[in-house]
């Protein structure tokens, strides 16, 4: 209560605070539109493709195919996101590979999402009853055709809620890209706060903007779930 009170005072009682709030909106939203949202969308899409590939590799009968997938998932899940980001941006140049901040962020976030989402997709595939594979086989399908035509469409429905979770986490995690100089939403906030010393106001403003983005995304999630649920009685 005390905190909230102080916050309200900062924003409303002092009209200068309100002005600052309004003036900061544009740079932050610009950062969001130019970097936060594209970074999220690109990394999520690339991550999903990577995840699907990894999940299918992990379900393979061959150990040789499974092993790299298992190692990749283990390495990504066992190390902090921030460290991965730093390795790509600050580490690779010492191997003479220099990548700009934004592409660095895309690479690191895609790899990260790929590992986490692959576990979700793998579990979803495993949740589809064995009889569905067999029904596919009996109409003449190979393993790959049954996977593509019968199993994955059903697994997709199962995986939407957990994948949405990953997606929304990703939106917020992109704020880490501020530490490798990507001028996304939070980096803009930091810049303004450093100039005005109005930390509380600016960071709460950034938090609200993230919240709005995530809220809109959760509406989209519900729409997708409804669409994919059309063939099941609920």
């Amino acid at each position, binding site marked *: 209560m005390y905190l909230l009170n102080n916050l309200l005072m900062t924003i409303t009682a002092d009209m200068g605070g309100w002005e600052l709030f309004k003036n900061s909106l544009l740079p932050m939203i610009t950062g969001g539109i130019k970097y936060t949202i594209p970074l999220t969308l690109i990394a999520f899409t690339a991550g999903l493709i990577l995840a699907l590939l990894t999940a299918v590799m992990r379900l393979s009968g061959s150990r040789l195919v499974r092993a790299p997938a298992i190692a990749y998932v283990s390495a990504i899940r066992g190390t902090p996101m921030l460290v991965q980001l730093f390795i790509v941006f600050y580490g690779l140049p010492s191997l003479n590979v220099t990548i700009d901040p934004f592409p660095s962020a895309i690479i690191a976030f895609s790899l990260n999402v790929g590992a986490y989402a692959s576990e979700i997709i793998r579990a979803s595939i495993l949740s589809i*009853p064995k*009889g*569905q594979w*067999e*029904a*596919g*086989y*009996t*109409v*003449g*399908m190979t393993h790959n*055709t049954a996977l593509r*035509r*019968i199993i994955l*469409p*059903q697994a997709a*429905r199962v995986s939407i809620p957990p994948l949405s979770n990953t997606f929304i986490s990703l939106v917020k995690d992109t704020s880490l890209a501020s530490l490798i100089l990507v001028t996304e939403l939070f980096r803009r906030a930091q810049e303004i706060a450093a100039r005005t010393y109005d930390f509380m106001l600016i960071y709460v403003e950034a938090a609200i903007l993230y919240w709005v983005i995530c809220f809109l995304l959760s509406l989209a999630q519900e729409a997708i779930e409804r669409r994919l649920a*059309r*063939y*099941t*009685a609920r």
Partner: protein
Amino acid sequence: MFLSIKGLAKAFGELEVLKDIDVSLEKGKVLSIIGPSGSGKTTLLRCLNALEQPSRGVFSFEDGLVLDFEKKISKQDWLRLRRKSGMVFQSYNLFPHKTALENVTEGPIIVQKRDKTEVQEMAERLLDKVGLKDKMHLYPHQLSGGQQQRVGIARALAIEPELMLFDEPTSALDPELIGEVLGVIKDLANEGWTMVIVTHELHFAEQVSDEVVFMDGGYIVEKGVPEKVLKSPQEKRTQQFLQRILNP
């Protein structure tokens, strides 16, 4: 002889489910397999569709396809074996994300790459035949168990198999829905389909079969015409089984 099976055996690890099965099947005839659960009857059926890989034994088909399971079997031969038969499952296993019609057209269009309009017409004919023409655009969850199983039969027929396999097709159904499914299977028998049916419906087996096989413990205990096996069985185990089913 459409198919003759010699010395078929199947083990899951240590557990021998089928021990030494000899049975043959004539074109246009109906073979019913009865027996207690765990007797191996479903496994036998699944071996015919390559859903299980037999451990030993030989399948010889009329058209010259011979599979000796002690030797390595090529991928093509597995596929040839599988494509000989259509399978109807106890729990239907319809594709829940596809309509009744799409369930039927999936195999012919996607796997067999047949002409779409032709397949569409054929699928409608098949669904009409099983009495579901007016339901063809519904999803499986909108259909009753009996209707789902009839879609399952149409789906199996659509790939134009030489042999139809039924794995306890009515065991998951409410009693009042059993008749509609058995009716469809009887029609197929009258049309001259070659069929193998695993069932607990003895009365139905008697009406529809040319031959009945009683299995227990991985062996065929007794086989013969339905009147003989079901009405005056020679083997003690067959008598006991029938006794238990008829007078529970």
